[in-house]
Structures are given as structure tokens and as C-alpha cells.
């Protein structure tokens, strides 16, 4: 650790360091020679296709997939067409772009997932070059064809191919090109000899980089930074021009003094970098060019590949892998020789302290005098995050912890967080795992994605450990890992269904957020329906089982599970699925066994398919229901004949149901309807649709007494009702003669009080008095009171000696009529 700065190389104000990440554990005989290599950023996996040009069936190219540390994940012989380019998606999938425009997708372990094509015209003109790029929309692919046309898609998971416009004068591949993402648009930047063009969806625009002298010659190589913000160009004359990618501003120009085009040129920056710099690679040379005229040069002893990262460049060779990056400012301040920064002093103080030297105190005091102890701790904490070497990490963290002791109100949060995170990072950096993530990258990719990556690599135990250690809520952490594990487990064909189900259940248990139905769905997808059924049994929420059961064509089971769940929406989903799946008879039978489903479907049919409703009732032999169905159908019939026919059907059904009352009532309704029709035709009475009572009333009002009486007889209307009705109708018409005649026709079944009532109501006191004599003694008092005949009422009441009636009369008696009052009171007292 004393030699931290030994690997530092100064360039302008900044330093660059090369840290060895791994000694590659792969057994590559020829290194990376003659191979297509793709390594994913963020310490992703590496794919190597050796001798991709070989086509003869006897010696096909070989595709290998390794972890970043060189552990073999998959290896197989490439049997498809000629591959032009390999690339990785953000979700660790390998894209193999073939010459014929087909793109094959494999997972980390080399199993084929799917493929897509980049268009018909591409297969004729052949893909010359291809690039895989990442943008906020996902992972995309861009190609250039033999006729110099570009096609690209920004997201392979939501495939939309875009054919870019023609570039004037371009035959075949351009000199060099790059994909840019700007203003939410993906563009292609290309150079063709001395000309530079930007291609977007609709146009091809010639551009020129600001400040690039025309003598610089044509552009041989270009590179866009990780964030798409910066652009670097390498010209024929060995100049490296850097500027913003929108070609608005120039950063600087450096002469590399090299004439040949570099094999690779990539940006080497970090967030908040001190200077923009690019790394260029030739056969035997690695060169870092920054803002000053100087460059750093490293010799290369074997074929290498540069992998751009968020905060540096990984240099991958046949035997080693190194990280080349700008030294972070905080590390510089601490480790720079003779640095007097607070962090450097604190580190020194702690070193002395460990040596039990009193100079520790001197250093500390110096820091404290400047009041920068907090700053010192912060620096050490931050610098620890940037170190790869565990010993250095520890030294820095110990120093920070030491300094912290002398601070009273310093939040422990950053210190604790960095300790935890470094622990996790050190674990995943292990060669056996092979995820060489820097702290900056880790922060950028988030712990969620890290867990995903571990899961993709099937490192389930480690992923669970990480989740537990970082205290990630179970729902997003452990459960998620378990779900992936289980989904992977059910695909292992070497185990019996029984064994898999048992293992899965034992491990997953009741973890929240793990859905057995998802696992079962996976099992079904991998062709193990029996296992799927077994797993579904563990699913606690019956509703979750339904979709898969439907997919597996276990419709009956699905229906009963849906009913069990109590979710009517789900039940209806299954019902409508069954409706299309089954023949009508079976469908109805199925419904019959599930009353809930049946009633739901009935509700639906009532509105949407009334014919089906009828069939349903028929199936059930529900004759009462059918009767009701026909009755309500009758009311919807606009024409009387139709209505009568429907009612006749109803009568038949009611008879079948032995519902005499309804049958008879319906028959009578038909009779009434016919009667009404007759009268409507004869007299224009407008009776259609009235109730029996209203019909009679209408007839009486029209003076058709005979017809009303006929109705009364035909329908056996109780006398009382008819009397009431006729009485009221006559009085309302003021047909007093007819009323008189009516009163004499026979003895009134409702008594004569109502006669008095209706007359009074229609303001004919004289007529009312006529009926008073006929009123029975019990009602006499009431009748007299109605007429306002107090004397009469009093007489009747006294005669009957009824206390209540006496009271009633007394209550109506005005105070002025003393005589009557006395009489009544006397009568009451007598009683």
C-alpha cells in the first residue's frame, strides 16, 4: 500500500492508473487473436467467437461465454450463419448479428431464446458492420448493409425497424461510424472520406466538427462517450479531436504522431472527471490522450480489447484484465506524494497511532487546528470506495473510523454504508463470481440490478446473502431471488416432478411476494404440466391459479377455483372463456354446477343475450323462470299479436310448472287484452295496457256501464271493489241520477257511508243527505260529522251511548254551542 502511486501516470493535471482486475482463468491458447469479442459494460460477461469466418461444416467456429474473470459459462459450436457482430443487452442477453440480417439471442448460459430479422432487403445486401448500443429505451442494434444503407432499432424487446435515409455518395461501409442518442432521438454519425454526416430518421446532414483544421484529412476512427455527450475523432494526420457530440463545441486537439488508424478508440472518463481523455489502441500500443499535448503510452504484449465503462476503460487481453481510469480527485489528494490534505494527514495520523507513536497526536492536532477533521474523515471514506485493493480499503476505513472518534456530531451513515457496500463489492469481485464493479458503477446500476445480475448468473445463495446483508425488503430482495431460483429449478429435467415440487416448497415456503402460480406457469412452459398442477396446489390465493389452469385447459378446475376466490370478475373471465371453448350443452352443464357463475352469466344474458337466457332456463327445466321470461318478453313486444303469443307461451310454461295462479292470471290478462282491443276498435276507448281496475274506471267514465259490469262479471271482481269504483266514478262525473239508481240496484256491500263520503267530497251536501238515512247506525255519527250536522251526530251518539263517539262529537263542538255541549256531557256522565 505504500506504493499506491507507483501505478499512477500523470497527464496534465490528472493522473491515470491501471489496476489489475483479474488474471484470466480461461484456457485460451491463441489469446484473442482472430476472434470476435464482446464484453458487456458494468463488469458484464464476455463472449468470444473464434475464427468467425470459417464456414466449412467440418470446422465451424466456436462460441464461448465467460464471466468477466474468465470462468466458462457456456461453450458450443456455432452452427448458424456467419456472425458479423456480437453484443450484450442490458439484461445479460447475447445478441449475435448475422450477415443475413438475422439476430439470434442467447442467454448467459448459451441457450437459445429467440431471434428476429432486421428486414427483408438486408438479407440480400448483407450486413457489413453492426453495432449494439444502449439507450434509455433499452438495447438496440444498428447495421450498415452492402449498399451503404443504415437500419436500426432502439429496443430489441419492442422491435421497430427504422431504415435511415441514403447517404450521398456512400457505396459499401463508411470509413467509420457511431450511434448517438440525442434529444430523445437515435442518430448515426458517419464519415466517408473527408465528409462527416449525421443521419437521423428523415435526413442526412453534412456536418463539420468546430475547430478541426481542414488539413486534418479524413476521419478514420470515432468514438462516443458512455453518456453520449462527447465525441472523439481520429484523423488521417494522427490528430485526436474531442468535443461535444452535438458538434457545437470543441474541447481540444491532440497530435498522437501516429499515422495509422487505431484498432480501437474509446473514451476514458468518469463522472466529474478532471479532464476528458480518450484511449487509443494499436497493435502493440495503448495511448491515453487528454487535454494537453502530452500522452501516456503503454506497450501491449498481446492482442487486447478495450471495454468502455462509466468511469474508465477495461483492457482485456488473453491473459489479464486491467482497469484503466483517471485517479479520482479525492484519492489523488490523499495519496499524492507530500500531500497535506486533511485526508492524507488523517491517514498518516492513524498510521502513527498504530505504531503507538505520539506523532499521531501531532498530525491530529494539525488537522483539528484547521478544523477540517470532518472533511478528513469524509475524504477517507470516499477514497476507500474507489480502491480495488482490500488492504488499502481497510487502511482508509480504519483511518476514517479513528478520526470519527474525535468528532461529536458526525453522521455515521456514510461510513456504515460504504463499509456494507464494499463488503458486497468485494464479494462479487471475487474471481469465482467475476463481476468487477467499481463503486461508481455500483451506485449507478443500483443494488436491484446487481441482484438481477447475480440471479442471471444463477448465483442464488450469494444473491440472497447480499439481500439479507443489505437489509433489502423481503418483497424486493430475498423473495425475488427465490422466485427466480424456483423458476430455474422447475426447468431441471433430471429431477422428478415430486422431488422438484418438494424442494421448491421447502425453500420458498410462505415467502411474501413469491407466487406459486408464476413458478407453475414456468413449469408448464417447460412442458411439465403435472409439476405445474402440483405447484399450483401450494398457491394460497385461488384466484392466482385461474389463468394458468385456463391455459392448461383445466377449465372445470379453473372455474371452481375462480368461484372459490370470490372474485366475480375472475369468474366471469373463466365463464366467457368457457363459452368460446365448449359446446353449448357442456357449457350449460358446467354452469349448472356453479350457481355463482350461473347467476353472473344470467345477469349478463339478461342484457346482452336474451335468447341464451331462455336456453339456460330451458336446460334447467325452470318453467317458472321461463314463464317469467315470456311475460317480460311480452311487454317488449310492440304488437298485440306478438304480445298475446308470448303470453300464451308463458301460460304453457306456468302450466308445466304447476303454477296455477300465474297461469290463470296470464290467461286473464290475455282475455283482458283481447277485450280492450275489441273496445278500442269499436269505441276508440284507448284502453290498451290498462289494468283491470283502470279499464273499468275508464269505461265508467265513458259511461259504458254495461261493459264495465260485464268485465266485473267476467273477471269475478269482488262486489265491494266494483261498488267503490262505480261510486267514485259516478260522483266525480256528478251523475247524481245514475248514482241514485246505482244505490237502489241492490243492497250496498260497502254500506252507505261511502256514498255520503263521495258526495261530500264532490261538494254536494244535498245529495249526501239523501243517503244519510241509509247509513247503518254504527256509522251514523261519522256520516253526520262529515255532513257537519252536529245535532244529528249528537243524537246518534247519545242514542248509541258510545263513549268514543260522544267524545268525537264533543271534540268538534264549538264552545259557543253550550246547549249541545251540556247535552253531550250529561250523556257521557250518565254512562
Amino acid at each position, binding site marked *: 500500500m505504500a506504493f499506491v502511486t507507483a501505478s499512477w501516470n500523470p497527464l496534465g493535471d490528472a493522473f491515470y492508473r491501471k489496476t489489475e482486475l483479474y488474471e484470466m482463468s480461461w484456457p485460451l491458447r491463441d489469446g484473442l487473436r482472430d476472434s470476435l469479442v464482446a464484453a458487456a459494460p458494468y463488469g458484464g460477461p464476455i463472449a468470444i467467437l473464434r475464427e468467425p469466418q470459417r464456414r466449412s461444416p467440418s470446422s465451424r467456429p466456436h462460441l464461448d461465454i465467460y464471466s468477466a474473470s474468465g470462468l466458462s459459462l457456456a461453450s458450443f459450436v456455432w452452427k448458424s450463419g456467419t456472425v458479423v457482430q456480437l453484443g450484450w443487452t442490458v439484461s445479460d442477453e447475447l445478441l449475435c448479428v448475422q450477415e443475413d440480417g438475422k439476430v439470434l439471442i442467447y442467454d448467459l448460459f448459451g441457450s437459445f431464446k429467440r431471434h428476429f430479422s432486421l428486414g427483408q432487403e438486408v438479407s440480400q445486401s448483407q450486413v457489413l458492420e453492426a453495432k449494439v448500443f444502449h439507450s434509455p429505451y433499452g438495447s438496440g442494434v444498428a447495421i450498415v448493409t452492402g449498399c451503404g444503407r443504415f437500419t436500426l432499432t432502439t429496443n430489441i424487446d419492442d422491435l421497430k425497424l427504422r431504415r435511415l435515409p441514403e447517404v450521398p455518395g456512400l457505396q459499401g461501409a463508411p470509413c467509420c461510424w457511431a450511434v448517438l442518442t440525442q434529444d430523445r432521438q437515435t442518430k448515426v454519425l458517419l464519415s466517408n472520406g473527408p465528409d462527416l454526416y449525421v443521419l437521423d430518421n428523415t435526413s442526412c446532414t453534412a456536418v463539420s466538427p468546430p475547430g478541426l483544421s481542414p488539413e486534418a484529412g479524413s476521419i478514420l476512427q470515432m468514438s462516443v462517450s458512455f453518456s453520449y455527450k462527447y465525441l472523439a475523432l481520429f484523423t488521417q494526420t494522427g490528430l485526436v479531436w474531442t468535443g461535444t457530440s452535438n458538434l457545437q463545441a470543441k474541447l481540444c486537439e491532440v497530435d498522437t504522431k501516429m499515422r495509422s488508424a487505431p484498432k480501437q478508440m474509446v473514451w476514458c472518463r468518469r463522472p466529474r472527471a478532471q479532464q476528458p481523455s480518450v484511449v487509443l489502441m494499436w497493435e502493440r500500443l495503448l495511448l491515453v490522450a487528454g487535454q494537453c499535448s502530452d500522452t501516456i503510452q503503454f506497450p501491449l504484449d498481446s492482442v487486447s480489447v478495450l471495454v468502455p465503462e462509466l468511469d474508465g476503460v477495461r483492457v482485456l487481453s488473453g491473459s489479464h484484465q486491467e482497469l484503466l481510469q483517471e485517479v479520482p480527485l479525492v484519492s489523488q489528494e490523499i495519496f499524492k506524494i507530500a500531500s497535506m490534505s486533511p485526508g492524507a494527514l488523517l491517514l498518516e495520523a492513524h498510521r502513527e497511532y498504530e505504531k503507538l507513536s505520539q506523532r499521531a497526536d501531532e498530525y491530529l492536532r494539525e488537522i483539528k487546528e484547521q478544523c477540517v477533521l470532518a472533511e478528513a474523515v469524509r475524504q477517507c471514506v470516499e477514497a476507500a470506495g474507489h480502491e480495488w485493493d482490500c488492504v488499502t480499503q481497510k487502511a482508509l476505513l480504519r483511518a476514517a473510523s479513528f478520526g470519527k472518534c474525535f468528532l461529536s456530531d458526525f453522521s455515521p451513515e456514510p461510513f456504515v454504508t460504504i463499509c456494507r457496500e464494499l463488503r458486497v463489492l468485494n464479494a462479487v469481485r471475487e474471481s469465482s463470481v467475476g463481476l468487477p464493479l467499481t463503486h461508481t458503477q455500483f451506485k449507478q446500476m443500483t443494488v436491484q440490478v446487481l441482484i438481477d445480475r447475480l440471479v442471471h448468473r444463477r448465483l442464488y445463495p450469494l444473491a440472497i446473502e447480499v439481500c439479507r446483508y443489505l437489509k433489502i425488503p423481503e*418483497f424486493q430482495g430475498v423473495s425475488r431471488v427465490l422466485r427466480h431460483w424456483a423458476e430455474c429449478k422447475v426447468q431441471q429435467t433430471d429431477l422428478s416432478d415430486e422431488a422438484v415440487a418438494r424442494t421448491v416448497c421447502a425453500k420458498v415456503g410462505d415467502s411474501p411476494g413469491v407466487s406459486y402460480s408464476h413458478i407453475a406457469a414456468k413449469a408448464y412452459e417447460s412442458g411439465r404440466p403435472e409439476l405445474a398442477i402440483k405447484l399450483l396446489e401450494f398457491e394460497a*390465493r385461488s384466484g392466482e391459479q385461474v389463468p394458468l389452469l385456463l391455459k392448461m385447459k383445466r377449465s372445470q378446475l379453473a372455474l371452481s377455483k375462480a368461484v372459490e376466490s*370470490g*372474485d*366475480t*370478475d*375472475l369468474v*366471469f*373471465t373463466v365463464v*366467457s372463456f368457457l363459452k368460446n371453448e365448449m359446446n353449448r350443452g357442456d357449457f350449460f352443464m358446467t354452469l349448472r354446477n356453479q*350457481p*355463482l357463475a350461473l*347467476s*353472473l352469466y*344470467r*345477469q*349478463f344474458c339478461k*342484457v*346482452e343475450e336474451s335468447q341464451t337466457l331462455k336456453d339456460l332456463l330451458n336446460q334447467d327445466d325452470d318453467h*317458472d323462470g321461463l314463464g*317469467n321470461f315470456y*311475460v*317480460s318478453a311480452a*311487454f317488449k313486444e310492440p304488437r298485440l299479436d306478438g304480445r298475446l303469443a308470448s303470453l300464451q307461451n308463458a301460460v304453457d310454461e306456468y302450466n308445466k310448472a304447476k303454477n296455477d*295462479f*300465474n297461469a290463470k*292470471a*296470464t290467461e*286473464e*290478462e290475455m282475455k*283482458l287484452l283481447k277485450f280492450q282491443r275489441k273496445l278500442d276498435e269499436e269505441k276508440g276507448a284507448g284502453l290498451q295496457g*290498462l*289494468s*283491470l*281496475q*283502470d279499464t273499468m274506471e275508464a269505461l265508467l267514465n265513458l259511461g259504458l256501464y254495461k261493459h264495465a259490469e260485464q268485465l266485473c262479471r267476467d*273477471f269475478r*271482481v*269482488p262486489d*265491494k*271493489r266494483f261498488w*267503490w269504483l262505480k261510486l267514485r266514478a259516478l260522483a266525480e262525473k256528478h251523475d247524481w241520477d245514475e248514482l241514485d239508481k246505482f244505490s237502489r240496484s241492490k243492497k250496498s256491500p260497502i254500506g252507505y257511508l261511502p256514498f255520503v263520503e263521495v258526495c261530500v267530497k264532490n261538494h254536494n251536501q244535498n245529495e249526501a243527505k239523501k243517503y244519510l238515512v241509509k247509513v247503518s247506525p254504527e256509522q251514523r255519527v261519522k256520516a253526520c260529522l262529515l255532513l257537519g250536522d252536529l245535532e244529528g251526530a249528537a243524537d246518534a251518539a247519545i242514542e248509541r251511548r258510545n263513549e268514543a263517539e260522544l267524545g268525537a262529537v264533543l271534540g268538534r263542538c264549538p264552545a259557543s254551542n253550550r246547549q249541545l255541549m251540556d247535552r253531550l256531557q250529561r250523556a257521557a256522565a250518565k254512562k
Partner: protein
Amino acid sequence: MASQRRDAPPLPDVSVLKRVARDQLIFLLEQLPGKKDLFIDPDLMSPLDRIANVSTLKQHEVDKLYKVEHKPIVSVAEQLCFLIRPRIQTVTWICDLVNSDKALGRVRRYKIIFTPQKFFACESVLEERGVFGDVSCDQWDFHLLPVDDDIISLELPEFFTDTFLAGDQRWVRTVGSSLHLLHSLFGPFSKVYGIGRIAKMVYESFRTQLQTEETRTKGDAQIENVFIIDRDVDLVTPFCSQVVYEGLVDDVFRIKCGCVEFSPDVTASDKSIKVMLNSQDKVFSEIRNEHFSNVFGFLSQKARTLQMSYDKRRGMDIKQMKTFVSEELKGLKQEHRLLSLHIGASEAMMKRKTKQDFQELLRTEHSLLEGFELRECISFIEEHISRQVSMMESLRLLCLLSLTENGLLPKDLRSLKAQYLQSYGFDHLLTFSSLKTLGLVQEQHTAETLSAMETRVGRLVNDRTAGKLTEAISSLAKKSNFRALSRKLNLVPKVEDYDLRVPKDMAYVFSGAYIPLSCRLIEQVLDRESWSGLEEVTRLLNGHEFNVTGSASSPGADSQRRVLVLFLGGCTFSEIAALRFLAREKGLRIITVTTAITNSSRILESLVQRN
């Protein structure tokens, strides 16, 4: 009436439900940026008005408001938004609209907001009519409307018919979610009691949601007790005439979401006035729970004190007058206005009620409840029907007769039905079929059918047991469930002169003639903290009772004295008044949650409309 006991805890703040609903609605409206016309289901008008008024809607770029009328529309807007209940008819109408626009080559954006939830059945209609892609669907989780401080309504009147008549349980989950929402706002609940088949299902749905969703209950429980009851456990109560003021106003004028429209004969002017009826209304809050016979006295008393307050201003100097005008006058005027409205309403109700021989009607009802003079009651109903007094009232009495007698003799039933059909038309055949399904109007097990059963069973057993059997069967024939329940629970108080001014039990809500069965059950269970000792009662109610006890908070906490009563299928204002009385007596706070405020005519109309 007696004021709240001093140890009763305050009511929790239920208005938070309104804010939650409004925020979500605004969010949904903003999902469709730009000007749009809004079509609203007629029965959502009033609830919506409580949540967001027109100006709020206008703020979120709602241009014109229309009622959904199932007719072609006149709107010319580019964007149409439909706020509807998830009903197939309405969705079909929207489909026709979209398709006719398409035929005319007209391009618009359509958005349907279903509330309280969207149903797959509705979406499948969209799909079948080929407009699924043209319309975007959303869901406004507007489950609960706080109608007053202690009443929360789901505003789902169709719950009753859908659930109990059609056997369609699609609302169960909705209610379960509502309970879940209440749980997360006011819970955790520690004691849940319930009775009824649907109550059990609602509880189950609630429990599953509790398990599967991450529930956060903030802080301590505010309400710990919950009582869930199915409407069909007690159908008698809603079929009794309401005589407490609030109930009567509802019967006569119809209260919609705590708002009533008083017709011109009440307001003594030429236009009708909409009035909010809730605890904010000082006059109303004092009379709402009173028996109607007390209301007049109270109102005149109130008028006198009001006059006195006005009179104070005589003999005031300028300064006093100034404070009087600025501080008191406005309140007095407001109170004056309300007072005159309520007096007007009382008069109007009095007029209507006396016109229909209300007293006689009440007497018949009371006889039915007590089981006296059955023949007289039947002939009263007969006359009621044949004179066409009122279609709904006749039906109500019929239901009450059948419910209290546990069905009618076949002969009586046939004749009453025939009379009814003659009076009000044959289409009521279907109404009777619905009433039968609901058990509202049924045929009694006749003595003949019973004796037939008896002889059949008698042949199988020896003579001694046969004797007992005969006894048992004949007792079955005589006693109706309601009678037995009434005896077991003492539903009909045996007091001669019931003082309605100083009521001593919940029977006052029905003039001292009957204690609502539902409220009595709640009282008994809360007293016992379980169903034990009520086995006989629950057997008569067909079981389905349950209680779940969780860990309670420290004894004596306010939350333990708060009770949430959930009525599945609606409850009446009389029941709410009875529960308020109960709460006052026991020092509790009862919050009534109901699928809808109901009364006999609402229930019956929903059955008649179905035809």
C-alpha cells in the same frame, strides 16, 4: 332528547374519505388533458356533487356536463369522458356512440371511468362490439361517501337486488375493499361480529385483501369494533312506516346523499329549494332523531327562543347593535331560514299523512308487529288495494304481513295477489315472483302440507315419538320466525303508555311499538361481546353468525367504544336513529356504514323497475 353521555368518545374524522376520492378523481381527469365533455350516470350525480362541485370539474378542463340518458348525444367536443357505474347497458350505449362516430368518420377520444370498480363483463362488451381499442378505461375507487359525521354510504342501491335477488355476488369484493379502506384509515379492528351469508363473504374478502396487500394502518386504532349485518336478516324493519323526523322526511321527500329538495308547498315560495340535512344544520340536528309527534312542539319552542334573540336588539345602544349585527344576526337569520323550512316540511308531511288515514295505517302495522287481529289487518290491506290508495304502500303492507306471519295462507295469498293485479296491472306478476325469491311475500306451510308430512313421518316412528312430533310440527305451523324472535328478543315492549318524549328504549323510533330487530341484535351482541347465549336467536335467523376477536388495545381506550356497523343491502334512517339512541345510552359512538340509505319504497321500486 338527552345529550351525549359525557364519557362517549368523539367521532373520528370521516371526511378524509372525501379528500381521498376527490384527489383520485382529479388525477383521473388530468389523465385526459385538454377540454372534454363529461357524461355522468344519473345516480352518480348527487354523490359526485358531494365530492367535487362543478367549479372543481371546470378547473380540470371539463367543458360541459351531461347526464347519461341512453340517447344519442349532442356534444361536439373532441374528447368525451364517461363517469359511470359498471353497468352493461351503459357500456353498450357508449359502444353504440363510438360506432356511430366511426361510421360518420368522426375522430374523438373516449375515456370511461368506472366507479367504484370496473368489471370484466363491461370490458368484454367493449371488446365484443369492437371498440376496446378506441376507448380507454379507468377506475375511480370511490367506495365510501361520508354522508354525515356518523353515516358513510357506498351509494350502491343495486347491492340489495343484485345480491339477494339475482344471487350475483359481484359487489362483495367492492364492500370488502371498502372495509379494507376503513381498516387502513381507522383500524386495526380488533373485534368483528357479523351475521348473514353475505356478511361472512364480505369478511372473507376483507381478510384476503388484508393478507395479500401491504396494509399500513397509521398509528393507533380509532375504531375497534365492527358489526356486519345482511339486510335479509331483518327485512321487517325497513317495511315499517318511519315516524322519526329524518325517516319521515326520507319517506316523503327522499333524501339523496344527505340532501333533500323541498317542494314549493314546503318552502312557501314558487320554487323548490335544496337543503343539506346533516349535523351542520343546527335545527335539523336537534329534531332528526325525534319522534314526529314531538317535532312541532320543539319547533315552536325554538321559534320562541329565536324571537327572543331577535327581541334583544330593542334597548341596545349603537355599539351593542353593531356587535349584534356582526356576530349574531347572520347566525340567527340562518337559523330562522332553516326553522321555517322545517316547519314547512312538518306541515306538508302532516297534511299528506293525515290525508291517507295515516293513523289507521299505523294501527294496522302495529297489529301486524304484535300479531293481533290478523283478519282485520288482512281486510284493511284488501281495501287498501281495491281502493288503489297507493301502489307501493299496499305492497309494503303485504310484505309486512307475510314477513311477520312467516308467509300467508295460500288462499289469502292468492286472493290478495289477484286483487293487486286487478288494481295495478298484470305486470306485477313478475314483481310477485321477485318478492317470492326474496322471501318478502311467501306462501305459508299449510296445516294440510304439515299434516301430510306428519303422517308420512309418523308411519316411520313409533306412537310415542309420533305424539311429540305432532306437537312439534303443529307448533311449527303456528309460530312464525318473527313471532319467536320477537318473543326471544323482546321486540315489542309491553308498556301501556309509552312516553315518546322521554324514550326508554329503541322502540320509540316506531312509536314504542317495536324495537328494530337489526338494532336489537347489535345491542345484544355488543353487550355480550359475542353471540353466546343467542344460539336460539341465530338458529331462527338461519345462522351464518361469526365473531373474530383479535388483540385489543389497552382497556378503556376510546377506540374500544367506537363501533362500525355495516349494513349490507341498505339501512333506514329509523335504524340509524335507534343506533344513535343505543350509543347515547351505552356511551358508545356508532358509525353506520351502509351500501345505501334505503326505505320500503326504494326497495319495492327497485323490484318493480326490474320488470
